[in-house]
């Protein structure tokens, strides 16, 4: 077998092993190890690759953003900032058909600016907004669907663990990726609201619900009390990065400390809860970075096999147009999204496609946004859709099955796909804010 054949066979082997249920970092590492060994008929070389990759990948300074933004997200959830912003949004949207749904989307968009993961968003909002929607007779499938759909915003609107991971694989600046994520994130939120409005207008049964009886509005001081903490965090974190006052790492650390202060002042956290937030931060960081380490073994193996060069040559001779390359890319991501988590999809597909995208003169920042949005559609699709799982588990309500959650989330996955197509078609949506 030629190195390129080995390289391509290894991609297939990895996908099969991962589907069988092998730990993803182990599948990436083992297959890459064996591939190098076969390719060069040199066991020591394979060991050397392990040696270089294992130390290297973790030592990256910007990776400190992973634990810092994870910790910040956990702390602000505990501090109740998600619930607060939801109440404020709710008081604004309650006169509208499907208003609680819209409020959920809006609150998610704001909460997304202080958390790096969709899991936090999904668990916070299934606790605060689903019960309320059910008590107002909303269609249960719509209720869980809107929470699942909008939880995705947590990883598109910065800070985002996925944008950080992409920026590592593609060697792009984390700060620029964060900036590029803002417009697409807001656009997706707007698309969700538009979808809810349209359905409320033309298919009200899909949404269900009845209007609020009480007409008392929140006072300005109440609104201020509930929005000031989260606004100040957003200003410090995103403002710090945007102006260049803080590196993303420093913004994460400052945000963590500020979030902690808010939680303590509001008496929402005790020593026990604090310790567990730290503990979970460590677990998530270790799992993500070990995955990244393994993926770096894989992408180096592909590099040594010459797969990216060969793929580039192939596509050049085959004369595939931009349209078809992006079409294959999106289909591949949706296929992998059925069973893989977002980070794994990014780490597997980006090294394959990066060498094709760069020579076409396309922006790698734009490509990152397309990748992250595309890979996150998988959060909503069966059989493995993390956001839906988290919602089902957090709700713990026998009346709502996992199937209901998936069915409810499906229209939102379609809306994501439409937004993704727009993002591909109009790169300036992602890039305008950078220039």
């Amino acid at each position, binding site marked *: 077998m030629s190195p390129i054949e080995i390289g391509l066979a290894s991609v297939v082997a990895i996908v099969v092993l991962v589907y069988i249920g092998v730990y993803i970092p182990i599948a990436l590492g083992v297959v890459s190890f064996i591939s190098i060994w076969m390719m060069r008929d040199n066991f020591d070389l394979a060991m*050397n*690759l392990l040696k*270089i990759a294992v130390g290297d990948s973790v030592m990256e300074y910007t990776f400190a953003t992973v634990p810092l933004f994870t910790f910040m997200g956990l702390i602000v959830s505990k501090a109740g900032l998600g619930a607060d912003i939801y109440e404020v949004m709710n008081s604004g949207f309650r006169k509208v058909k499907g208003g609680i749904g819209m409020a959920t989307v809006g609150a998610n968009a704001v909460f997304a600016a202080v958390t790096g993961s969709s899991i936090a968003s999904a668990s916070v909002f299934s606790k605060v907004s689903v019960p309320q929607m059910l008590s107002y007779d909303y269609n249960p499938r719509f209720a869980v669907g809107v929470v699942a759909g909008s939880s995705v915003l947590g990883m598109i609107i910065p800070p985002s663990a996925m944008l950080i991971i992409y920026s590592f694989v593609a060697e792009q*600046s984390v700060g620029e990726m964060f900036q590029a994520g803002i417009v697409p994130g807001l656009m997706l939120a707007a698309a969700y609201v538009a979808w809810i409005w349209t359905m409320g207008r033309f298919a009200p049964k899909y949404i269900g619900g009845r209007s609020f009886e009480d007409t008392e509005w929140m006072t300005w001081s109440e609104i201020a009390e509930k929005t000031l903490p989260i606004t100040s965090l957003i200003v410090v974190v995103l403002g710090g990065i945007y102006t*260049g006052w803080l590196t993303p790492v420093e913004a994460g650390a400052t945000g963590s400390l500020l979030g902690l202060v808010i939680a303590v002042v509001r008496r929402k956290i005790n020593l026990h809860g604090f310790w567990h937030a730290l503990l979970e931060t460590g677990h998530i960081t270790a799992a993500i970075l070990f995955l990244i380490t393994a993926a770096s073994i894989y992408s*180096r193996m592909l590099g040594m096999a010459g797969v990216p060069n060969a793929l580039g040559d192939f596509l050049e001779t085959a004369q595939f147009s931009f349209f078809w390359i992006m079409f294959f890319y999106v289909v591949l991501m949706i296929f992998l999204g059925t069973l893989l988590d977002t980070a794994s999809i990014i780490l597997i597909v980006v090294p394959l496609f990066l060498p094709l995208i760069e020579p076409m003169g396309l922006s790698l920042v734009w490509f990152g946004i397309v990748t992250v949005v595309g890979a996150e559609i998988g959060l909503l699709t069966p059989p493995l859709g993390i956001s839906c799982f988290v919602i089902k588990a957090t709700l713990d309500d026998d009346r709502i099955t996992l199937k209901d959650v998936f069915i409810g989330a499906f229209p939102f996955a379609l809306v994501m796909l439409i937004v993704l197509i727009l993002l591909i078609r109009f790169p300036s949506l992602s890039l305008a804010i950078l220039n």
Partner: protein
Amino acid sequence: AEKISAVVIDGYPAKALWVQEFSNFFIPEVDKRLAEAGNYEMDWQESYGGSIVKPKGVLEGVKLGLGDIGIVTTIFHNSKLPSQAISAVTPFVAADSRAVAKAVDEIAKEFPTMQKEFEEQNQVYLATGVVLDTYQIFSRNEISGTADIEGGKVAGAGMNLRYLEGIKDAAGVRGGLTDFYNMVQTGLTDHAMLWPEAAKTFKIAEVAPYMLKADLGAVNSKTVTVNKDYWDGLPDEVKDVLQEVAVLYRDHVAGIAMDRAGESRDAYVAAGGTIVEMSDEDRKAWAEAMPNLAAEWAKTLDDAGEPGTEMLNAYMAKLKDGGFVPVRDWSAELTN
């Protein structure tokens, strides 16, 4: 002709000056010379931009055989390659990449130390690359001398942060080249230390319209090396060609760096920047106030049983012979 395969690695992208010239100058030149004799033919596989190693990983990549030939960025490896810091520890001597590249390369060949350091990393030294003409100070506000830097914050990276020890209450702030624009723009720092070509690339003129022409000096940062096991398996004819071309590559890259430096200074002025000449007294005062990094460097090597002092003396002598007048003669103060 017999085919010989060679995997070339660097973690920097193909568009970086020294990588580009490796593809466009080094490789064709080697091919041309081998073709003349007709005995051997190279089969190059070029892997740049992180496809096999990251910029910091080239040294280890060549050591471990992930690449046969690599362009090592030596400033990342102060610990494994201490003698490579020779031009960084001797500021205010020569603001000329060609002269520094030649002098460092000759030191590498006349003394065993640099080659030994690479040999311990299982690789063979081929040539030195110098890609910047000199560090200068770029400032937000009008600047006429070191007095304007006192008590200020200066963005910098690597060894040159230590130059600031010669300026009262100046604080170095570490950052990557890509961060400097933002750091100065926001006022996080008042100044940034970088070279004119980088200033042009990162549009520094927009945020730091005053350049203090301090001429701190050119610094060697790239070394072309070959994996030792791979080298041992090469025929002598190929070895000779690689060594000859390496010297040409050294001068070629340094020449381009100098041309670009000139263009970049013009571009800086055209973009609204003002270049302020630093007075001789001021340069002298700054140099005198700096710690003698060169003496520290020589002592560390001497203590390790290497000819640090001799290397420093020989290096300074080469540059002086080349017509450069050091603002401070770092070697004159050596104690032994």
